[in-house]
């Protein structure tokens, strides 16, 4: 069986859902003939035609807002935002409209839209093509925020997001697009939204993270296990809003030592909430302070490779932090 990259998995998810359900269509910048600047929608234009794979004018608030209107009608649109950084002009449509539609209409209307956007750093994207933007939205009940860490989840979660009757922000790590590949099962992959995933079982320390950092954490954990015999309990959040509190609490209790990782700036990131959940529910099980490893609190990742490297959380930094916690 062939290896499927993270981006191919995303492409497959869209293709399958568009084949399955006429209500699914794609709109965004350059998603048509060009197949997306990353080529996530490659082939969809030829397969489904320009009516269902729509090159929108360069206007994110309209891309999202038009998608919301179509979703209210009963469609299941997939809106592609070219880079997650450029979702910001659409924040009003996402937070004021999509997230609140069901609630404000007392359940009369709903908004089953999926907004996809590549996020994350380490690809020489500089300040505006590297950001982790999830925390801007991670305080908005009504929204779900999903971030897959591997091809299988990318496919299974995107299919679930498209079918979901509520709005889902789906952030794809652009460095993972071609870096990560794996074989996918023959049968249909559908991964539940709202559930974290235990990537590694272990007893010494619990590491909770999401996105590309899961990959680095897994690699670091393998090395540490071999080199130092440290046993890592690795949790991939997968849905970063609303959080899977049960899995977080269980994992924290299991080891009593917790390392939280994000490539986002530290203050105000997703992992602050994860820490708060643990501090609320597991205090007496903890054997060490809840440690956080994150990007520095500077506006975003600079372009120059020296600075990008200094900014980005990587496998080595993770390994060091893991060891430090294990030795605590």
């Amino acid at each position: 069986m062939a290896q499927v990259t993270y981006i191919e998995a995303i492409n497959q998810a869209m293709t399958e859902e568009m084949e399955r359900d006429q209500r699914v269509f794609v709109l965004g910048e350059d998603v048509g003939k060009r197949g997306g600047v990353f080529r996530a929608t490659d082939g969809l234009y030829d397969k489904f035609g320009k009516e269902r794979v729509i090159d929108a004018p360069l206007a994110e608030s309209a891309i999202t807002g038009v998608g919301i209107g179509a979703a209210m009608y009963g469609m299941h649109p997939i809106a592609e935002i070219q880079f997650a950084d450029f979702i910001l002009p659409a924040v009003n449509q996402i937070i004021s409209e999509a997230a609140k539609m069901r609630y404000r209409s007392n359940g009369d209307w709903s908004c089953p839209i999926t907004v996809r956007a590549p996020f994350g750093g380490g690809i020489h994207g500089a300040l505006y093509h590297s950001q982790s933007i999830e925390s801007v939205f991670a305080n908005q009940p009504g929204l779900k925020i999903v971030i897959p860490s591997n091809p299988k989840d990318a496919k299974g979660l995107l299919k679930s997001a498209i079918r979901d009757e509520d709005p889902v922000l789906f952030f794809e790590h652009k460095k993972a697009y071609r870096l990560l590949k794996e074989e996918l099962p023959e049968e249909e992959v559908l991964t539940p939204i709202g559930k974290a995933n235990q990537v590694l079982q272990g007893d010494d320390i619990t590491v909770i993270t999401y996105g590309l950092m899961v990959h680095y954490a897994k690699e670091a954990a393998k090395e540490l296990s071999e080199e130092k015999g440290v046993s890592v309990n690795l949790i991939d959040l997968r849905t970063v809003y609303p959080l899977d509190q049960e899995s977080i609490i269980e994992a924290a209790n299991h080891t009593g030592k917790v390392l939280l990782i994000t490539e986002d700036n530290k203050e105000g990131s997703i992992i602050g909430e994860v820490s708060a959940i643990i501090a609320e529910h597991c205090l007496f099980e903890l054997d060490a302070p809840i440690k956080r490893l994150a990007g520095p609190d500077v506006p975003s990742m600079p372009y120059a490779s020296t600075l990008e490297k200094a900014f980005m959380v990587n496998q080595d930094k993770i390994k060091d932090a893991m060891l430090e916690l294990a030795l605590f």
Partner: protein
Amino acid sequence: MMNKHEKLGLSDDDVLEMYRLILTARRVDERMWLLNRAGKIPFVVSCQGQEVQQVAASFALNRDRDYSAPYYRDVGVVLAMGMTVKELMLQAFAKAEDPNSGGRQMPGHFGHKRLRMLSGSSPVTTQVPHAVGVALATRLSNDPAVSFVTLGEGSSNQGDFHEGCNFAAVHKLPVIVMVENNQYAISVGLGDQVACEKISDRAKGYGMYGETVDGNDPFDVYRAVKEAHDRAKNQEGPSLIEAVSYRLTPHSSDDDDSSYRSQEEVEKAKENDGLIHFRNYLKEQNILTDEVEEEIETKLKEEIDEATDYADQAPYASEDTLYDHVYQTKGVN
């Protein structure tokens, strides 16, 4: 006076029904102010001065099929699309039975799925892209419905107006955008909001049809929207209709308009009140006889009284519904 409605294809019954709805909007609105001043409802945002354009435009639609995305002043639109006086009172009193939001939103935040009326929010102009999205969806679904959206002239300065209109025009979608120009955005007069001569001048920049009509003239509004509706159905794309009238009340029950406009200006505008002109026309045409008028007013008063009592007595949503309808299913998936 010349008969103006027949040549537009409107029967005597049609125009009488239009007038009845216009009057209903006005009387409901007047009642809400009374209720507000009596401390019965905390807030009113008014349609007064805009009812004629609202009802006339709605009559040019296919009210059994088309979608609407009204804005907060559109009491005339929502009545014409099928909302009842009782439902309007329920939302004014914020009661559980209110079909718009179950009392969750402020008055004037309309939405009614059975009537194909999109749920609206407070941030202005977000509904424009929504209406465009509905039009896109109708096309993808081979549904002949047209999408109708309204907004104030002040709101036409938001980015969403620009982005929504442009999207609609590029894709030649069946949308009618009606700007209700009442010459104020709260305290800011037209001249401090825009420097263009007409809001409809913006249409050209999107390559869509644009036209400005007198919002106090039901026939002109009806004609313009009817033509826009025909264009929409014939795949000729969206239209921007500007209906010019005047906001006869303060912005809302929280506003005091004496700080920014003179009483004379308001009084002068009242002379142009489309409702009065329409009434005069119907009287001259002998469609609205004194008897008919009395009957309408009496019935209306009864209906509003009943609706008010009903809404006043109706229960609020109970506390334990607070967590309902955040997601489709409680908890995530």
